[in-house]
């Protein structure tokens, strides 16, 4: 939302802001994927793993609270910059915690990817082929789990152009493949945060933006944890925007259930529905 509004002027934000936004975006992705991995374990009845994932997630939420002030709805971006900065002490704590989180997640993800029970509940369940995924307009891990190399981060917004980033793609298209994509992305997100923290440039954290949004229109694509998040904004020179359109990834991913659900066993429905990581409250925009 902030970036699409910045595009109306357009406003060029300082490099430190780009890196900070990337770090917080990836931190959100880490906690969102850890939440999802826990929910997946819960969906097929692996309760202990569910709580283990959520325990790790709590550390990431603590980092978010320490750096932005809030756990989930960070409200840290403002037009022209960010509200908070990461101090050198916080940076050190972040690096130490992220290394621990990576180590702990890695050992749990190893269980998830190798366990016989997990495999028997997810492999071959809710298969979505590459053609079907493209035809139904899926986004994010649902699309990448079906073998399509598509990610809004490839547009190199924020600091992604300067980081070593390559999307995670799995070919199988079943619930297991989507779980693998998210599991690998969790570790990748931690690596991206560590890389961005190491490269974090000095400088200002906000530039002053004067006046109302000009009469102009802009679109912005960002990669949210669930997939591509699309924003369209149209200004008319007044304080309020004339139009703002949001398309959330769940809206794009929901039609895929029409292909995945028919013919499946009733006990597999929770796993398949969860495999697109639905956020129904986000859908109606």
């Amino acid at each position, binding site marked *: 939302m902030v970036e699409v509004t910045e595009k109306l002027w357009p406003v060029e934000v300082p490099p430190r802001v780009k890196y900070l936004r990337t770090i917080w975006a990836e931190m959100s992705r880490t906690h969102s994927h850890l939440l999802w991995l826990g929910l997946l374990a819960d969906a097929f009845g692996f309760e202990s*793993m569910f709580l283990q994932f959520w325990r790790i997630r709590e550390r990431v939420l*603590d980092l978010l609270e320490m750096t932005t*002030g809030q756990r989930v709805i960070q409200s840290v971006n403002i037009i022209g910059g960010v*509200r908070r900065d990461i101090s050198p002490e916080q940076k050190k704590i972040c690096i130490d915690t992220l290394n621990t989180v990576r180590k702990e997640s890695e050992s749990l993800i190893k269980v998830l990817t190798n366990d016989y029970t997990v495999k028997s509940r997810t492999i071959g369940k809710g298969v979505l082929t590459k053609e079907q995924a493209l035809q139904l307009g899926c986004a994010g891990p649902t699309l990448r789990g079906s073998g399509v190399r598509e990610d809004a981060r490839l547009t190199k917004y924020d600091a992604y152009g300067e980081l070593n980033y390559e999307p995670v793609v799995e070919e199988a298209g079943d619930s297991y493949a989507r779980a693998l994509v998210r599991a690998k992305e969790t570790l990748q997100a931690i690596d991206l945060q560590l890389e961005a923290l190491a490269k974090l440039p000095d400088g200002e954290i906000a530039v002053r933006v004067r006046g109302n949004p000009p009469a102009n229109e802009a679109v912005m694509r960002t990669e949210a944890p669930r997939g591509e998040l699309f924003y369209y904004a149209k200004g008319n020179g007044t304080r309020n925007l004339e139009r703002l359109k949001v398309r959330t990834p769940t809206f794009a991913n929901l039609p895929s259930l029409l292909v995945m659900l028919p013919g499946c066993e009733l006990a597999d429905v929770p796993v398949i529905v969860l495999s697109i990581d639905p956020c129904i409250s986000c859908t109606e925009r």
Partner: protein
Amino acid sequence: MPWMLPTILKNFFGGPATRLYPVEVREPFEHARGQVSFNEDKCTLCGTCVRRCPAEAISMDKEKNELTFYPARCIVCEVCVDICPRKAIDLIYKWRSPFYAKPVEVYKPRGKASNKAEKEVAATHEPALNN
């Protein structure tokens, strides 16, 4: 199972991951956005926070000289704290305790009266200063 074994052993001998909340409360982070509070002495009921609050958590009645705050709606986005021209809204790092009934806080701002009084005092002193 063998991959889960280290985690299981760690859980057996490690301490609990949770706290006995609300008996044991973690210290808030230094800049955590816990809650907002209004300073009745500074607020002049200008209405900027009411217009800008994205959660519609603040309302005011100028005739009754009342500012009503609904903490259960507040998302602690800090917008009101940033834009208040009189700096009458403070951010408190400590989280609000859980509640059974949704609280409603009513403030009786005195900022306008004190502002007026300040101006009157300044006006009475002005001729003296000029002399």
